[in-house]
């Protein structure tokens, strides 16, 4: 049942994307769009892609809130790293450390790891056993991760989904 | 006059014979019967053309148009008539002889032998009746190819080497030089049809004539003009009937016949003489004639000696052509027939000696004449004919050649001809003399050398002796009945 729901919602999302991409609303192209969406959903199901990981509709609006916050973080860290790069003294002090990823689900861990990577200054190098190995450009950015603010926010997304 | 079927028949008969022979390969008697029948039928077919040709007719037949303006086309004229008669006639003798020889020596692959023989004869007929140079060339090549298996008949490394030389020189010269000459002729004259008076006459001039003549003369490797004569001695490894075929019936005769044809019908004797390009050819022929005779003197192997004798005798024909006079041409043409008859006799004898005694070296033949009187008697007759002594056929051809030389005032040539006759005497007669007059060596050594003839030396098998007797008789006949021959050939020299 959940699978069918996922499939339908995926189909709808895809169709929306189609319309956005296409910009044509002639019957012919709409037909093609529908056909396309059906085919893609069918293949996706064959590929076993359509589940809560592959199509995380359950995250709902929370994800957008997180995105906004993340963008802010990205801007901040960007400016920080940019400063360091153009500073003639090149004030960097790379570190490599493990930090805990407290998310229950794999999806959550992925979002966390990617978020770390997205913010310049820190890069996730490895994800294993509920921890993330992070490479940081400077002590400050390392501290920012170690603080655990991002970890908490990602956990709050409850990516595990109702399974 | 439409005896054209006879032409095609004489081409077809040996071919059909070849097929039948190969089909009857399992039953030797049938096979050899077929061979003989074929040979006879062929001779009859050829002979049926004689009256027409004698009467001045020129039967013709066209097979196919191979290239525009260049059909495979046959036309019987006197020279070809003569050649065809000689070849087909001698084939009968040769067939009989072959049967005796091949059986006597237990040769392998006899079927292939007879098949190739028949095919070679078909090619020879094609050459003899060819109505244009193209056709002649086609059959000339076919003859080379069909005789190749005969030369390499024994399959030994030596035979294969000989085969390579044979093929290499014959195909090489024909494709490399003769074909070029033919093409060039076509280019200049626009036709290749044998035409009385020559097709190049008036169309080519100056050095081109010389170059063309050179290309033709050395392109016709079968004429064994020095220095392209190597194939002929090399081919001596073949069984004796093959040697007879090569030397008397088909191959070398085809060569000199082609030379004659080229000189008479492509260049035209008058044209050639006027151009003056015949001079060097004359000298080459003369040189070949003498050198080959001298080499023959040094050979102890009987077949090798005969081979060089052939080279020398062929040069007579070429010389006749090179003289470019009517007598020369008649003499040369006659020499074809005369030499064929004489040389086949000699080869038959050599083969008979080998079959009976396994002897190949002249020095071993002392005293054999008494054991094999018929063989050595025939050898004597053949020798005398080759030397050119009356009352044998060879005398006529030598005579006309002398006349031809005299006609052009070439004293040198007359001298050479005479000298050559002396040389012939010197290398041929000792064989006979040795056989008859020298005592036989110790029996022990004879016994060791002649394993099959345990009970002393006897005549060769009857089937070997009869043909050589016949051909020896032929030599004699040719002296007395040369007139028809002359009348046959007259038109070509005196158009």
């Amino acid at each position, binding site marked *: 049942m959940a699978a069918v729901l996922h499939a339908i919602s995926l189909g709808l999302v895809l169709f929306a994307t189609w319309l956005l991409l296409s910009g044509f609303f002639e019957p012919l192209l709409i037909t093609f769009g529908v056909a396309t969406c059906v085919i893609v959903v069918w293949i996706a199901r064959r590929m076993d892609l359509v589940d809560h990981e592959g199509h995380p509709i359950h995250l709902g609006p929370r994800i957008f809130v997180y995105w906004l916050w993340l963008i802010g973080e990205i801007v901040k860290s960007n400016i920080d790293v940019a400063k360091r790069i153009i500073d003639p003294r090149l004030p960097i002090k790379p570190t490599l450390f493990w930090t805990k990823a407290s998310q229950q689900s794999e999806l959550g861990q992925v979002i966390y790891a990617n978020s770390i990577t997205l913010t310049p200054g820190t890069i996730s190098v*490895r*994800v*294993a*056993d509920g921890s993330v190995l992070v490479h940081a450009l400077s002590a400050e950015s390392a501290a920012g991760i170690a603080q655990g603010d991002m970890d908490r926010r990602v956990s709050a997304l409850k990516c595990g989904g109702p399974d | 006059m439409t005896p054209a079927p006879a032409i095609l028949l004489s081409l077809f008969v040996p071919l059909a014979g070849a097929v039948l022979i190969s089909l009857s390969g399992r039953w030797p008697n049938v096979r050899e019967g077929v061979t003989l029948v074929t040979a006879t039928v062929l001779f009859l077919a050829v002979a049926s053309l004689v009256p027409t040709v004698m009467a001045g007719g020129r039967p013709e037949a066209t097979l196919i148009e191979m290239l525009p303006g260049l059909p495979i086309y046959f036309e019987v004229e006197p020279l070809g008539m003569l050649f065809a008669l000689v070849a087909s006639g001698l084939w009968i003798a040769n067939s009989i002889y072959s049967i005796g020889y091949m059986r006597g020596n237990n040769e392998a692959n006899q079927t292939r032998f007879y098949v190739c023989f028949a095919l070679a004869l078909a090619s020879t007929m094609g050459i003899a009746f060819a109505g244009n140079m193209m056709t002649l060339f086609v059959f000339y090549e076919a003859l080379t190819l069909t005789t190749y298996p005969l030369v390499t008949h024994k399959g030994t490394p030596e035979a294969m080497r000989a085969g390579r030389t044979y093929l290499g020189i014959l195909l090489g010269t024909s494709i490399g030089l003769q074909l070029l000459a033919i093409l060039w002729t076509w280019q200049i004259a626009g036709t290749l049809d044998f035409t009385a008076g020559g097709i190049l006459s008036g169309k080519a001039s100056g050095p081109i004539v010389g170059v063309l003549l050179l290309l033709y003369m050395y392109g016709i490797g079968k004429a064994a003009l020095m220095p392209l004569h190597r194939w002929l001695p090399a081919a001596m490894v073949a069984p004796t009937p093959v040697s007879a075929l090569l030397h008397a019936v088909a191959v070398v005769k085809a060569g000199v016949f082609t030379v004659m044809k080229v000189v008479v019908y492509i260049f035209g004797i008058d044209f050639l003489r006027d151009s003056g390009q015949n001079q060097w050819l004359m000298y080459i022929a003369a040189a070949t004639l003498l050198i080959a005779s001298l080499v023959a003197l040094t050979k102890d192997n009987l077949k090798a000696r005969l081979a060089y004798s052939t080279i020398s005798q062929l040069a007579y024909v070429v010389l006749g052509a090179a003289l470019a006079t009517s007598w020369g041409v008649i003499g040369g043409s006659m020499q074809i027939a005369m030499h064929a008859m004489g040389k086949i006799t000699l080869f038959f004898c050599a083969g008979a000696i080998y079959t009976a005694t396994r002897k190949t070296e002249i020095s071993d033949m002392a005293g054999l004449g008494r054991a094999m009187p018929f063989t050595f008697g025939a050898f004597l007759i053949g020798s005398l004919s080759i030397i050119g002594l009356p009352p044998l056929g060879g005398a006529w051809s030598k005579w006309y050649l002398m006349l031809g030389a005299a006609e052009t005032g070439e004293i040198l040539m007359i001298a050479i001809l005479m000298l050559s006759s002396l040389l012939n005497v010197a290398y041929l007669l000792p064989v006979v003399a040795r056989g008859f007059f020298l005592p036989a060596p110790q029996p022990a050594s004879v016994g060791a050398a002649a394993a099959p003839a345990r009970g002393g030396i006897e005549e060769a098998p009857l089937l070997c002796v009869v043909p050589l007797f016949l051909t020896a008789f032929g030599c004699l006949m040719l002296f007395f009945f040369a007139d028809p021959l002359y009348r046959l050939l007259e038109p070509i020299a005196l158009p």
Partner: protein
Amino acid sequence: MFVAATLAILITMALALTRALLGPTIYDRVLAVNAFGTKTVLLIAVLGFLTGRPDFLDISLVYALINFIGTIAVLKFLKFGDLGTPGSENSEADD
């Protein structure tokens, strides 16, 4: 304005290119290639505006996509030395 962006992107590309040529490790090259790919995406987007035909952004999208797939292939190659292995199904660890 687009000119400025174009120039900036070209400069960045040149820098990435330098890195790709310098190496020293193959990872540096891959990084440079990856960055270069992103820059190309931008360049094409900007060029569309520059030439007044901004409706060809599909190409940029394709670039981004291909770049991603290419990088994954590269990494898989680097890690496993071949492209067909799925790896062991059970292990959750990354190595």
